[in-house]
């Protein structure tokens, strides 16, 4: 197992190099605005000056080589073309907000999805089941940016019909005021969790219905277990794919939630990457992409290792 994990960690490095290379290639092959012009405005002389200073006149492979050398030797992710700030510092500053959004939403969608899915499976084909699964289908289909705007129009304290929750742009870091932090994130959490919760409820319901028809559930009943324990036996099997999906989804979201952070104006990595793309700010794009890729690869590894513990039939060698 340890050897397996070490081998997988070495692969993380290989994948990260591949991702950084691809990002560079895409940036230089696809049409993009000129970062120097974007920064200099209508002043060609200034633009030339900026281009020279940032090394944008060098061929792309030379730029890539310098970038990778700094990254490997000094753990340096470079500086923003637009604002000259350190990309590494910028990412560190923005990460807590993205983590707050992702983790909080995950807690909501996992608890609600698992509860709804289990109840729906045990009451399958009843009115309750049909109603919740119908609602889940709507929630899955609703785009996050639309749902976010609807939530703001209905419930935010500034523009809402009912002044219930703090609106867009109200994010406060946890370290500054935990209570305001919580209040400002309630709407983003629920908006982000809605479709995940619905998807997980449907996934778990399907698994659970299948598992409850298994022979070993009949055995559990035949040996006289209470129905509560029988359901636990079923859930133990049905939840395994849910844990896998959750690991991967959380991994993706830790690298920033572009839509939710943009709609609710939360200063996280997602909004940073959105701004970086608008400004053709390659070092920032590269930094956010590498961070996102790192979390996704890491989540895959965690999920694979967790799977071996959840299902004793799985062994890596």
């Amino acid at each position, binding site marked *: 197992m340890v050897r397996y994990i070490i081998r997988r960690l070495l692969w993380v490095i290989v994948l990260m190099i591949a991702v950084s290379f691809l990002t560079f290639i895409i940036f230089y092959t696809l049409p993009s605005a000129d970062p120097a012009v974007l920064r200099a405005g209508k002043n060609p002389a200034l633009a030339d000056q900026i281009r020279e200073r940032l090394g944008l006149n060098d061929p792309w492979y030379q730029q890539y080589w310098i970038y990778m050398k700094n990254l490997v030797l000094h753990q340096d992710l470079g500086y923003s073309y637009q604002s000259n700030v350190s990309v590494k510092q910028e990412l560190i500053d923005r990460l807590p907000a993205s983590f707050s959004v992702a983790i909080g939403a995950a807690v909501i969608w996992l608890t609600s999805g698992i509860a709804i899915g289990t109840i729906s499976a045990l009451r399958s084909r009843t009115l309750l089941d049909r109603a919740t699964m119908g609602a889940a289908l709507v929630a899955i289909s609703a785009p996050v940016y639309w749902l976010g705007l609807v939530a703001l129009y209905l419930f935010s304290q500034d523009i809402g019909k009912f002044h219930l929750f703090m609106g867009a742009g109200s994010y406060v870091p946890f370290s500054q005021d935990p209570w305001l932090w919580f209040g400002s994130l309630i709407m983003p959490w629920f908006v982000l969790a809605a479709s995940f919760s619905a998807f997980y409820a449907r996934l778990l319901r399907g698994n659970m219905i299948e598992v409850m028809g298994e022979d070993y559930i009949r055995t*559990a009943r*035949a*040996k*006289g*277990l*209470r129905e509560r324990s029988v359901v636990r036996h079923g859930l*133990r099997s049905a939840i395994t794919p849910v844990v896998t999906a959750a690991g991967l989804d959380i991994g993706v979201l830790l690298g920033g939630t572009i839509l939710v952070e943009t709609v609710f104006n939360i200063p996280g990595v997602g909004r940073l990457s959105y701004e970086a793309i608008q400004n053709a700010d390659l070092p920032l794009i590269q930094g956010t992409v590498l961070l996102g890729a790192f979390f996704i690869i890491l989540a895959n590894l965690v999920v694979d290792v967790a799977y071996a513990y*959840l299902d004793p039939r799985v062994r890596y060698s």
Partner: protein
Amino acid sequence: MSSPLLQVDDLHVRFATEDGIVNAVNGISFSVGPGEMLGIVGESGSGKSVSMLTVMGLTRAANSDIAGSVRFQGRDLLSASDEDLRRVRGDDIAMIFQDPLSSLHPFYRVGAQIVEAIQAHRDVPDSAARERVVELFGLVGIPDPRQRIDAYPHELSGGMRQRVMIAMALANEPKLLIADEPTTALDVTVQSQILDLIARLQRELGMGVVLITHDLGVVAEVTEQIAVMYAGKIVEHASTQKIFAAPEHPYTWGLLQSIPRLDRGRDEPLVPIPGLPPSLINLPSGCSFHPRCPYVRPPHRRVEPELEPLADDPSHRVACLLDSATRRRIWADLQAGLGPQAARAKAKLGESV
């Protein structure tokens, strides 16, 4: 036979499905006494498993309709509450199943699954329950019980898994053990070991046992009584010795002639039963076996036979519209090597229709 352990009377089980009403069990009656072993034999779909699952209360569902009576030690189980039935299951009546791999939870250690079965009925600490599991593993012949107790089902062989299932069933010293095709999923060499084990445990523990199988060879050596089921009914019920020596139902003849026997010539062909088991949604009229019976006569399509005792042997009951003398002549002819058509002609049953 003193007071029976299990007394089933006129049991009916129906399931509502999208295709129609499935008549799984259509009025069966039998009893099992303490220390007795009853074999229930029939093809898949004959209702043998469903009837025993119903005894355990495991067919209770929104789409099932259960009628008749099931009494365990005089107590009516069909009208018992779910919680009362739960207390009976795994404690007074235990069940083992066909495929031990799919019948054990793949994510729990085998010892833990048995500890759970004990603690569902008795308030004992984990350590005492584990000791009991070690003892049970010894009883059912699992070597190195202390190591095997922490194995997962997939780490054991098929035979060992079925021994685990048996140990689980015996955990609370049940008075009645229901074994549903316990050897079907196992290697032939292991089959007889498991069967011997069940027979030995039955003798040692004095349990009543119901052994469900589609294989007459399995029940031949271990049971005292055999009930042959067809389309949800018992068509013949007699002592094991009678079923093999003097069977009186054409379906039983079919079963016996389709298994190879050492006391017959190697060149004697096995005679399969023609046709397929009937649809349980549209049961055949009259005698359910008539579409496949080589000895059918026109009235058999209309009149439903009752399971009736033979005049000279009340313990032997048969549901067949042919009279007993004719049946005995046909069986004698079949034993003499005649094919079903020749035996029919000789019995002068008229043109086959």
